[in-house]
């Protein structure tokens, strides 16, 4: 079953004091399948956060439909709110309470009274156990981000929305968050992730969509995107001492490329292949 279905979603912002309309989403359709990690890639201002906010019921769609676990987000917002967990892009501070208290209150908001077992599990998983009595302002940036993830997971949601979870996070923490995201996936959670770190999408996502200026330009497996829109570079040294640099579509096999350039395998002394990357495909598509 599809966990999330978005059909022809449009969102237009009409500013109050002028007649200018901003079309943040211009007819987006996508669906997320049970247990997959879906990446939404796009430059700043492409409409990623607007899309997330429409799913979390913070914004009402201007047109189109958003269904979470088969129910319309507009008609049954409480159902959606219970089913999903959200990690917002901006880090949230809370001045008065410790991490443990924040997570207890958060559980209560979702109707769960004694949730200490789950809270302990999340604190452990996100390496926050030693800091459980600290207040948010005493935490480092990375810990705050992990706290936000813990908050989004207290009620064990089956769909998790991560809005740029690793923005401003160091390499080590990023790797550990990725590991955790994959664990969540293994436990049956479907994840929608927005990012502009393409490496993240390449490593984690089963499928990605590229969004630009409110339109989805492409949806497919990261591998497919790379093959379709990026290039493969081959550096060769032949037995005659010549060096060649061959650049071709990432989808083509080395055999075909060599054949086209009339180079036989037996002539090759040294070979170096640079595989196409999502980065390149992305840049190409966004600039189309």
């Amino acid at each position: 079953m599809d966990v999330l279905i978005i059909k022809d979603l449009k969102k237009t912002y009409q500013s109050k004091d002028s007649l200018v309309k901003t079309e943040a989403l211009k007819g987006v359709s996508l669906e997320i399948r049970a247990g997959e990690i879906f990446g939404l890639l796009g430059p700043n201002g492409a409409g990623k956060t607007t899309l997330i906010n429409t799913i979390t019921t913070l914004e009402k769609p201007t047109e189109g439909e958003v269904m979470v676990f088969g129910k319309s987000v507009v008609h049954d917002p409480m159902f959606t709110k219970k089913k999903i967990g959200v990690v917002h892009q901006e880090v949230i501070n809370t001045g008065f309470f410790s991490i443990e208290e924040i997570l207890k209150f958060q559980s209560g908001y979702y109707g769960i009274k004694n949730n200490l077992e789950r809270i302990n599990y999340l604190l452990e998983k996100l390496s926050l156990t030693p800091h459980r009595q600290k207040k948010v302002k005493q935490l480092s940036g990375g810990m705050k981000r992990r706290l936000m993830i813990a908050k989004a997971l207290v009620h064990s949601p089956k769909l998790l929305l991560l809005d740029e979870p690793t923005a401003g996070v160091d390499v080590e923490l990023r790797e550990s968050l990725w590991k955790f995201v994959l664990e969540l996936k293994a436990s049956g959670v479907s994840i929608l992730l927005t990012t502009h770190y393409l490496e993240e999408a390449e490593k984690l996502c089963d499928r990605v969509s590229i969004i630009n200026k409110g339109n989805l330009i492409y949806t497919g497996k990261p591998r497919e995107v790379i093959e379709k829109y990026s290039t493969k570079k081959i550096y060769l040294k032949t037995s005659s001492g010549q060096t060649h640099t061959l650049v071709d579509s990432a989808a083509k096999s080395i055999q075909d490329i060599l054949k086209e350039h009339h180079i036989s395998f037996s002539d090759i002394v040294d070979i170096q292949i640079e595989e196409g990357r999502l980065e390149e495909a992305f840049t190409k598509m966004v600039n189309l």
Partner: protein
Amino acid sequence: MIIPFMTLVEKEISRFMKVIVQTVFSPILSSFLYLLIFGVSLGSSIQMKNGEVYLAFLIPGLVVMGLINNAFQNTSSSIITSKFSGDIEDIRVAPINHNQIVWAMGIAGVFRGALVGFITGIVGEIFFYFQNGTLLAVEHPLMMLFFTLAGGFIFSFCGIFVAFIAKTFDQLSAFASFILLPLTYLGGVFISIDNLSPFFQKLSHANPLFYLINGFRYSILGHSDVQVPLALGMTLISLVVTFSMARFALKNGSYSRW
């Protein structure tokens, strides 16, 4: 349904309990000073028309003032600090509906307001005992309960309304100092409207706080500047109006971070 609601009530109460010096002790200190200076020192030279001591007139006024100021402060500062820190988003995303939010915050506001009002009342009673050798009796306890709850909710709802509508900190403090403060002082916390000029007497009848303060005063003293049914009616109307304002603000107000 009930757990999210109770959680929000608990969170709002523990928020002000964490900063109790500022949220409870400091308003009690100012009530104490009012009682000492106006009630005891200046009060001895004030003649009330029915021969009553001024302190007896002042105590109910200060209790209501403590109640409404702190109910207003509790909801408004909770929302404003949440706007600063961004955690107002948590409540928007969580499965809690607007009615639950309004009532939960309202209950916490009433709780803080009633706590300050209650302690102010006790301090007032101590002063009264030393001055008159007896305690000031409450004539109509049930009516006192009604005006306490109604006054607390009205100003908690006001706080929710202003805090959500306000786009800057200035707008919030403008409401507190240019609307709330004059209405409280002119509503009869310190004086009977008989002492006002005819123009201000007339104007007082348009002040919703006049009915609340004098209704509360009636519940303790058994007499005041207003007819009781009118005070009850006007207070109920204020309750409905401010509740609708709070609901409106939650729906249309700004949740954006400052």
